[in-house]
């Protein structure tokens, strides 16, 4: 059986005034139904563009120039935009970071959820509204009959994100893309939203791609993790491997610099470990390995040629010259 999602050597470029940049540069990854894949990286590393590429919703100055996105074996890059439109919202849905800007401020909540149900399931407004109410109850809203008549500005951030999730779930997608779904929320609300996504995933045997810069969320919610750096995946494995046995120097640096993993209190001299330097600009990437000038274990060869993602141990992919080669 093919995997639910299989991305091969995907490259998404943007033509800008300063030249062409590759926001997603040769990304390969896969995902099974019922699994959560966490994509972690810093701002500008290409994680959102990767999600938008899967949705085929990249901004107008960008285009996908290479690769395949196989969804249940079918290449999403080869189907017509009409076919893609039908899949969007029904088979693949997305939840965005900012629930206020992604809801329509002049439409009542109920109408917004009902809209996608009407379009994808060919139902009448009344039936669609009834289904919206069920869906809102499903995402833990106590009084959905009242809520469907509210406008987005009347809801709290947590409620809005529940509405967004209800909307995304309304046609029972097989794949949910969640792009920083809790970044705009308080920590207690964040915990509730993550629990909700995980419950819905279990119940519907749905696959989830969870995009975040927050390693704590990844540790909590993901089964597999892909670490992105400057448009590339540098390490990909199970969440246990990534946290307890990271191989790429960048992943190690990230995990070690987490305040949560550092001993408590401000005892004098209790400094965090850091990664020196800054994320490189995509316009001005270092030669060879993109992490070269920040890497503490860089060797001479590292800035000659770019390393490729190789399976170093069973199910553990790393792109770093430190590791000799494929296990196979």
């Amino acid at each position, binding site marked *: 059986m093919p995997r639910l999602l299989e991305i091969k050597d995907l490259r998404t470029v943007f033509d800008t005034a300063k030249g062409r940049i590759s926001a997603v540069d040769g990304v390969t990854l896969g995902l099974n139904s019922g699994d959560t894949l966490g994509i972690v990286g810093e701002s500008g590393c290409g994680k959102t563009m990767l999600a938008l590429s899967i949705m085929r919703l990249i901004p107008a100055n960008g285009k996908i120039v290479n690769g395949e996105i196989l969804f249940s074996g079918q290449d999403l890059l080869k189907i017509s935009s009409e076919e893609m439109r039908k899949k969007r919202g029904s088979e693949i849905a997305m939840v965005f970071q900012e629930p206020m800007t992604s809801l329509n401020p002049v439409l009542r909540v109920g109408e917004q959820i009902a809209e996608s149900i009407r379009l994808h399931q060919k139902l009448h407004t009344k039936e669609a509204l009834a289904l919206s109410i069920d869906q809102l109850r499903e995402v833990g809203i106590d009084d959905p009959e009242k809520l469907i008549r509210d406008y987005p500005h009347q809801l709290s951030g947590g409620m809005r994100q529940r509405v967004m999730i209800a909307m995304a779930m309304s046609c029972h997608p097989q794949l949910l893309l969640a792009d920083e779904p809790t970044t705009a929320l308080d920590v207690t609300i964040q*915990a509730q939203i993550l629990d909700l996504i995980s419950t819905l995933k279990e119940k519907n045997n749905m696959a989830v791609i969870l995009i975040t810069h927050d390693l704590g969320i990844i540790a909590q919610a993901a089964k597999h993790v892909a670490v992105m750096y400057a448009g590339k995946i540098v390490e990909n494995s199970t969440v246990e491997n990534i946290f307890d046995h990271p191989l790429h120097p960048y992943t190690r640096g990230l995990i070690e610099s987490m305040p949560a993993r550092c001993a408590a209190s401000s005892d004098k001299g209790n400094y965090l470990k850091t990664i020196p330097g800054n994320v490189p600009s995509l316009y001005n990437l270092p030669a060879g390995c993109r992490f070269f000038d920040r890497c503490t274990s860089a060797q001479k060869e590292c800035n000659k040629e770019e390393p490729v993602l190789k399976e170093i141990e069973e199910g553990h992919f790393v792109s770093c010259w430190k590791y000799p080669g494929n296990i196979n």
Partner: protein
Amino acid sequence: MARLIIRLERPDAGNIYYKGDDINSFSAAQLKSYRGNVQMIFQDPYSSLNPRKSAVSIIREPLTIRKIGDKNERDEMVMQLMAKVGLSKEQANRYPHEFSGGQRQRIGIARALVLKPELIIADEPVSALDVSIQAQILNLLKELKHDFGLTYLFISHDLNVIRNMSDRIAVMYLGKIVELAANRDIYSTPMHPYTRMLLSAVPSGDPKNKNRTLSIKGEARNEGEKGCNFQNRCSYKIDICAQEEPPLKRYDQQRFCACHRGGSI
């Protein structure tokens, strides 16, 4: 609260004392000296730097305004400080848009330090920064605190950052302090039900430890209702919680909590 302390806002009631003097009865001259002693580091390093000024003139401006030193002395002070916060000489004449977020925050920190303040209000100083840059800035703040003998009022929503930075911690909920205690006491024996919920909600950063000890429920209620602000989310609610607002009570030398069931849950 930060804005009240640097007197960008005036309180409707109550007083703020700095070394025994009420800051809201300061004269213009007293206020000017107060604001030199109390400086702020802002959350967003993109909007808190003037885009039309170079790094060196941003950091120098407080000195210029206060006519401290002559031109050469000012430049000397700025250069020393820039080196201290990890900016190079070559970067001095660059403009904010030429810097990354972490570097801009370094400029903001240098500007806050140039008048040699005693108290720094740091309002979410790392929450706009990437993970790998956060640790750099937190370390820099610790180093500066040690070298210049600074006092920080460090505001953050991130409990892991707070734990790493603070000696004492005040937990706020809907405009009130619900618990105030030493760092280790907050994390080892949280007293207030809200503190407990917060700690349980923070991801542990360890995939082997995903189970929460406490259930997280509900959302903040509207302000101005009767009784304790947290009652609608609290698992320990008793009758009095719906009637009276609990005052912040002292439990021992360093420990305060505002809960009707304080100490008994």
